[in-house]
């Protein structure tokens, strides 16, 4: 970590939160539809992990707007996707849960809980085979750690010594179900212990997340096999925009928000990195402007053409073979 990077992470966190609030607003105005899973409260985790895993492939869950933006996808292209526009990163076909950008080695979200994990394992196999050991990072929630896909992946990645970073975002809830009601313990890293080294980190602390993911990636690059990192986080909103969040008490929400990751990073920048308050203010302003531009871009962008319905199912070569 250095000051410039800390500023960048701060900027992206602020940008991420502003983006999510804008998405919420435009959902409520009817310009966005379907599911909308906001990452508010979890920005330290999403931004710092992606920044730390600078090289290498990333697979994620559906709660991935901020991850996509941190990876470098234009906020406009993400917002346009949420609006279902042809300029969206997936041309309006994928929607919020499917933001894919191959040029940035980002393979998007997956709307099947845990479904992206076996894919990430396979990609890690390819990278090992190709001798490209930057490796792969796969992001998933605590809820995914109860499913077969996750467990099979721990075992295979370990048996094959794959360059894979399992990154668990443990916000303690899968929709309305608290993790401790359906798993025997709170920290899911325990599940990975038989297979690989595990790290625990405070997911509300960007600096800590950055350091742990950086370290984990460097271990992966040495070829000893996979690593598991669990970050405890807290989402401020309901599971998706249609979830009233009534299963968490006011007290629980208050405690949760006291650990605000953006406030924390700001304090750190001011106190440890001696950042100028004006600089931070200008970053915050730039973030808001960027989001406003993203919304304007999304608003002005055209709908996909009707013929888009039948494109992108098969690739060109095959189309030739088939027709």
């Amino acid at each position, binding site marked *: 970590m250095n000051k410039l990077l800390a500023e960048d992470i701060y900027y992206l966190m602020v940008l991420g939160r502003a983006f999510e609030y804008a998405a919420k607003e435009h959902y409520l105005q009817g310009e966005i*539809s*379907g*599911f909308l899973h906001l990452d508010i409260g979890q920005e330290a985790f999403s931004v710092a992990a992606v920044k730390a895993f600078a090289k290498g492939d990333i697979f994620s869950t559906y709660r991935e707007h901020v991850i996509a933006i941190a990876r470098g996808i234009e906020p406009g292209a993400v917002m346009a*996707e949420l609006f*279902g*526009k042809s300029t969206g990163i*997936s041309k*309006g*076909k*994928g*929607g*919020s*849960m*499917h933001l894919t950008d191959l040029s940035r080695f980002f393979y998007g979200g*997956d*709307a*099947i*809980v*845990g*479904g992206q994990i076996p894919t990430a394992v396979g990609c890690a196999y390819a990278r090992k085979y190709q001798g490209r050991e930057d490796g792969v990072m796969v992001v998933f929630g605590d*809820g*995914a750690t*109860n*499913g*077969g896909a996750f467990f099979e992946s721990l075992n295979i990645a370990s048996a094959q010594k794959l360059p894979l970073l399992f990154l668990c975002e443990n916000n303690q809830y*899968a*929709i*309305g*179900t608290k993790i401790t*009601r*359906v*798993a025997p313990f709170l920290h899911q890293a325990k599940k990975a212990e038989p297979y690989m080294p595990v790290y625990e980190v405070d997911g509300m602390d960007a600096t800590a997340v950055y350091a742990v993911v950086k370290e984990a990636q460097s271990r992966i690059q040495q070829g000893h096999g996979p690593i598991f990192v669990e970050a405890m986080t807290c989402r401020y909103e309901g599971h998706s925009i249609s979830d009233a969040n009534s*299963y968490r008490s006011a007290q629980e929400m208050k405690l949760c928000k006291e650990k605000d990751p953006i406030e924390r990073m700001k304090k750190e920048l001011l106190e440890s990195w001696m950042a100028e308050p004006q600089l931070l203010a200008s970053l915050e302003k730039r973030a808001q402007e960027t989001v406003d531009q993203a919304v304007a871009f999304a608003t002005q962008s055209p*709908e*996909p053409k*009707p013929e*888009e*319905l*039948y494109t992108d*199912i098969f690739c060109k070569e095959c189309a030739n073979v088939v027709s």
Partner: protein
Amino acid sequence: MLYREALNRAIDEVMASDESVVVLGEDVGLYGGSYRVTEGLVAKYGEERLIDTPIAELSIVGNAMGMAIGGLRPVAEIMTANFSLLAFDQIINHLAKFRYMSAGKTAIPVVVRFPQGVSRQLAAQHSESYEQMLSAVPGLMVLAVNDVNYAYHALKKAILMDDPVIFIEHELLYNKEGEVDFDADLDPFKARIAKTGEKITIVSYLKMVDDVMEALPEIEEKLNCSCEVIDLCSLNPIDHDTLAESLKKTGRLVVVEEDHKTGGYGTQIVSWAAEELFYALDAPPLRIAGEDVPIPYNRTLELASIPTPDKIAERVIRWGKNNGL
């Protein structure tokens, strides 16, 4: 009463009268179900009988089967049809076959419920329909009910039956209004004649029945004829008698479904009619179904991918005119 309230009521009544009935699934308990079908039940019956499961669909169905073997009468909820694929091994290799492989030694009183279909921009991994696959599995019965009254009675009977039933719902039906006649005695395996008519038999099920009914006035007006609309209710077994009777009268068959055209469930109906009632048909059957694409997120494309009342009317009218109506 809303469709989801009718389902809730059905489960509630059966739970009240039979302690062996339990419900399991993701967020079915404290949360009340993601489509609120099980709302309020945990307060009445406790967490032991409304079992919140982890996100592990294979286990949800596998556990349900084990509960049934152990003497319970589980109602398993899968949050959305697409996730049921994770449980296909347990549904098809186990639920459907266990009784046969053990030569009839055990009953498997399991209901597996899930909503399916295109709702509103939930995209490719949350919008599919699997009745085609599941109705082709010997050992399973498949119900897919459009009507609120039928939904109440069918679910109640399904839970009390001793064999595995796949009970398919549609996300857009949950808030449908309808009256429930609690004293009725309905056979969930008989098709419902949603409207009688003389010249065309339109067969449909689940949400599409409503779209057909919406398209009907225009169709009847433009073709100047009356149509019979059959709501299948049970997709396996099929009430072929009701279908045959109608087709012998009308001589014309239209099947409307939301599933993809290629290989969709409607092929069964058309294929059966072609084999068994060939000489009764006065015109080529017409299938109206979804396009052969993963469901896109964008609303315009999404609507373009499935039948709508407008499209149904337009296609039936065109077909009718080309075939002597």
